[in-house]
């Protein structure tokens, strides 16, 4: 520490400047502006239809009241949570299972399997959805879309969750697998000498030691799931099962761009950011607690 202070330098401040300026311009300022807009509304001006020179006036909590009081807003949150409840456990469960299998002794073809499972990560969400959309569509489906209705009132949630899981499974698997490789091998060998089976080692030793990594990937998956937008938006043109307000972000988009009410859009947007951050922080704290307990 002393050595670092010996010479006065402005280098760290200079190096940090671009990041700080960009953060202020593209995170703090838009956030502040959205909060400001959320408390405003358009007041009709003169003219026959009240469209001449409309003015912006203070609206108080009106936009928030509108968002809170709108059943469709809560329904969109409900649908998003339903997809998350299917998708997040499936992502974490399967990527952990695959990572443990990659690490298992005498498993074959692991190089091929690892690459194959990682491949969808290179496919953008929109493109993956188009791909699966054609897989689901009765006219083109190679997986029995003319027998199974993938866009039914219940199945559509699985259909959307499936696209999301397909895209992120491999990345999470690799993150978990690399952290598994970093664990001390001696532990497993000692357990093996004591007569533990491979399954017991995986469940009793490897899994608890993975707890911090699993916490991290779960939190990131959750942040991703709460921002669900690409998949339902891209599926919407091919099915009536998805409305233009199917998930909260689509709802905000519709408010701001289709109905041209940026004030309501801003209020819903800000509300959503607050709810998402709260949910993420709560989940993070809960998972950390669980992870700490399992480490003991």
């Amino acid at each position, binding site marked *: 520490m002393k050595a670092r202070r010996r010479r006065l330098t402005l280098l760290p401040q200079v190096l940090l400047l671009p*990041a700080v300026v960009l953060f202020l311009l*593209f995170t703090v300022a838009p956030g502040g502006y959205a909060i400001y807009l959320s408390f405003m509304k358009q007041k009709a001006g003169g003219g026959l239809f009240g469209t001449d020179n409309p003015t912006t006036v203070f609206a108080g909590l009106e936009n928030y009241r509108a968002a809170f009081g709108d059943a469709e807003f809560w329904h969109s949150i409900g649908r998003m949570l339903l997809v998350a409840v299917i998708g997040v456990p499936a992502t974490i469960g399967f990527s952990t299972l695959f990572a443990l299998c990659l690490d298992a002794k005498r498993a074959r073809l692991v190089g091929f399997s690892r*690459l194959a499972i990682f491949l969808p990560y290179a496919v953008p969400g*929109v493109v993956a959805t188009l791909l699966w959309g054609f897989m689901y569509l009765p006219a083109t489906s190679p997986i029995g879309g003319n027998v199974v209705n993938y866009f039914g009132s219940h199945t559509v949630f699985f259909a959307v969750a499936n696209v999301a899981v397909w895209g992120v499974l491999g990345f999470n698997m690799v993150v978990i697998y690399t952290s598994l490789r970093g664990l001390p091998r001696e532990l497993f060998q000692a357990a093996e000498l004591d007569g533990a089976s491979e399954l017991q080692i995986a469940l009793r030793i490897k899994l608890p030691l993975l707890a*911090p990594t699993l*916490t991290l990937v779960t939190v990131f998956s959750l942040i991703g799931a709460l921002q669900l937008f690409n998949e339902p938006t891209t599926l919407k043109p091919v099915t009536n099962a998805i409305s233009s307000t199917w998930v909260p972000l689509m709802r905000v988009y519709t408010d701001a761009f289709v109905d041209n009410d940026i004030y309501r859009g801003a209020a819903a947007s800000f509300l959503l950011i607050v709810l998402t951050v709260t949910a993420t922080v709560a989940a993070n704290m809960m998972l950390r607690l669980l992870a700490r307990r399992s480490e003991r």
Partner: protein
Amino acid sequence: MTAATTGTPTRARAGTAGAAGPAGPGKGRTNWIPTVILLVGAVYCVLPVVWIVIASTKTNSELFSTAPFAPAFHGGFFSNLRALFAYDHGIFARWAVNSVIYAVGGATLSTIVCGCAGYALGKYRFLGSVWLFRIIVAAVLLPQIMLAIPQFLLLAKLGLTNNYAAVILPQLVSPFAIYLCKIYAESSVSDEMLEAARVDGASEWRMFYAIGSRLMMPALVTVFLLQFIGIWNNFLLPFVMLNRDRLFPLTEGLYGLLIITGGQAAQYTIVIVGVLVSIVPLAAVFLLLQRYWRVDLVSGGVKA
């Protein structure tokens, strides 16, 4: 820190790392259960891509009449490709170029911005540095995609939407990338080495670009790839920022194609071959670069 990457054959190394038992890993009977589980997973992940390759070989009538997994060899693939690149005076190629500009430009700038910030926070203590780092850690939890709409509202107010910068600039700062670079700089750029350079009279700036940035290379490559994928995949930000189709990236262009061809099954083949063409280059880049891409760094920060 282990040197595990997505591509290197870590299994081979695992055999020699510990004191291998009498039957070292890799020898003996195949362990069928994990092998089969992994193959099922592999089929699930690859099957849609295989199907799109097959579907792209079909003409429109074949698409609806032939068996789904039987490719057609009646020149359908090349006529589909021609139709795709001829569509709207070749706008598909333009979208592909745009995607490369957004992803390569954005990821390069982002790596520089986040790498510099991470190095400064990792190797220096100054007024406010601890405080700044706390803000960055908290900002990791911010829903970045959700910020797109407030970002649009502000830029629209200033009349700055509808250009390349409107898509690139908002994506340059990634709190997670800064966090990752800070942790990596702390562990890989040793104070002794910097001190030696200081004694030899190197300037702080020279220490950064000659020593710091080189030692941080694995983290920088990882950040580049993470940001590249993030920007390449981002849909909502270009979706709100752009309304001129000549500025669209691939994702938005393909989505627009689907909207335009919406009800008409007659245009599906164009979209299908477009999906294929937009998957192949990135998948190829991935397979080529995977040895350099240190996914272990993503979870590295949580080990402590």
